């Protein structure tokens, strides 16, 4: 069990930076008036951010990932989350083997 000082500093820097991003939303909210339009924009945050995060994997990797993403989305309309993940993982492995 070793802990090097440079690693400790780096992990602390990462931790502080990350925590600042997590609490910055409180500050933003205090300085922004919640008009209907702002509220509608904030309501869109979950879908907007989650979509942006997965875009490179789903739309820019290859046909196997894109098709697996489609299968996962269809499954998500009917199945619980663990089953959805299983569909995603199994379909991406199968499709990669089939079409690369």
């Amino acid at each position, binding site marked *: 069990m070793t802990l090097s000082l440079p690693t400790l500093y780096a992990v602390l820097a990462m931790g502080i930076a990350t925590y600042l991003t997590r609490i910055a939303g409180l500050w933003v909210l205090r300085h922004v008036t919640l008009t209907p339009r702002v509220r509608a924009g*904030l309501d869109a*945050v979950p879908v907007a951010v989650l979509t942006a995060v997965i875009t490179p994997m789903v739309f820019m990797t290859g046909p196997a990932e894109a098709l697996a993403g489609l299968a996962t989305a269809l499954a998500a309309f009917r199945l619980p989350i663990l089953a959805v993940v299983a569909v995603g993982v199994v379909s991406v492995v199968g499709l990669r083997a089939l079409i690369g």
Partner: protein
Amino acid sequence: MRDSWASEFTRGVATILPVAVAVTPFALIFGALAAQKGLSPLEVGLMSGLVFAGASQFVAVDIWQHPAPWLVLGFTALTINLRHVMMGASIARHMGRFGAASRYVSLYFLADEIWALAERRASAATLTPGYFLGLGVTLYLGWIGLTVSGALAGSALGDPERFGFDFVFTAIFIALIVGFWRGYRTGAIVAASAAVAALTHLLVPGPWYILAGGLAGIATGAAFMAEDVEEQAA
């Protein structure tokens, strides 16, 4: 009648458990990759406990050097996690039941999955501190335990792509997006976010595509949905 703190906490734990199970391979692989880069299990546990943000931890390990360049790693974590600002502003609106200290403690656990499940709860019922911490503490302890286990197991786990584990997060996020589905307007948000994220990813190196795509989706939501809000008010 108000639900007790404990029952709300238990409800949060039950909600996050399937997600924690689904994240297990990902956490083990993260630990193994970090060990391959020369991080000790203690250092892996420390990073998981202090940072607790999967995507930025993966990128950090990817660019890791010895001795660790703290400025580069801190700045990279900041850019990758800038999406938290949008997420925090959104969820903070639903923290009316939280005291000031409780907000700052709760937001420490603002990881993607926890935040998305908290948003889902807030769209159906009141978000409580107990529920939020039930989500947060469970995934937090699981993440630390599993990433350290991965580091101890080392490289025995092999290549993540071989078993499709690299797709686990994508699948979870797709399931969460579908959970927020409200017809064609949601489709428009997805389309705008994906198009701008893809374009940014092509043109700009680094994680800026998340911010750009997110902002495009938010703008689309604001443009479309303000009409909804006005219709409801009328």
